[in-house]
């Protein structure tokens, strides 16, 4: 057994266990903090798949930015002292069955499909290549998404400020 396979198994167990804690924990704050470990494990997967730059972006933007935002949101909005209100689930059994059956369908599809594998990717530094791609082939999506980020930032500040004025 190769070393990457061992890492793959470790990350699989790690991500699925922590994601289950996120999904089924009754305390909102526990979910928010455990989500950090899920995102960390996903960065591990990205490293295994030869994406060093994407893994770093995942760690900095997702684990460092989005997750901190979510933790802030949890602390600012939820009644975290009362988990029985703050993270109530409803229709637990129905949702559980629908989720499990959906996953079963997906697993069957993945098992039955014959993926045509080309040559295997290589693990080499990707940062320079990604930079070239982003500024040549994908310049339009890049600009659009930067404008979207700006609009989202201004918009969210506006939403919160307008409420304060009223």
């Amino acid at each position, binding site marked *: 057994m190769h070393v990457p396979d061992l890492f793959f198994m470790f990350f699989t167990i790690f991500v699925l266990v922590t994601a289950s804690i996120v*999904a089924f924990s009754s305390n909102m704050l526990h979910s928010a903090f455990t989500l950090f470990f899920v995102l960390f494990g996903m960065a591990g997967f990205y490293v295994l*798949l030869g994406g060093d730059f994407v893994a770093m972006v995942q760690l900095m933007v997702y684990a460092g930015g989005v997750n901190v935002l979510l933790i802030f949101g949890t602390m600012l909005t939820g009644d975290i002292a009362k988990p029985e209100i703050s993270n109530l*689930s409803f229709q637990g059994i129905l949702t559980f069955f629908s989720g*499990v059956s959906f996953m079963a369908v997906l*697993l069957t599809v993945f098992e039955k499909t014959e*993926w045509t594998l080309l040559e295997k990717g290589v693990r080499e530094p990707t940062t320079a290549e990604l930079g070239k791609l982003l500024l040549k082939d994908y310049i339009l999506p890049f600009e659009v998404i930067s404008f979207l980020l700006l609009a989202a930032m201004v918009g969210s500040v506006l*939403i919160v400020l307008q409420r304060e004025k009223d």
Partner: protein
Amino acid sequence: MGLSAYLMVSAGLFALGMIMFISKKNTIGILMGVELVLNSAALNFMAFSYFTPSKGNQLDGQIFAIFIILLAAAEAVVALGIAIAAYKEYNHVQADELISLKG
């Protein structure tokens, strides 16, 4: 480990995220479910990019994964702004009780 193994992990994450955003009452909890689903999509893109690289650019899938991460950031910012505004108005963010627009 082959492509199927990665796809199965991402299917598990997708199912957990789906369970979350169907069953949670708290809006922030629904957001966390959406984050899980977006992560599973990005993992799919990375796996396909590694195992079946496209002929033109080998890194197309990674570009899409980066775009997914950025979109998730924008979505989280806006949704949290809305959640905080709703909390100021109603003192809760329970999704089944937020039934009136503008008021």
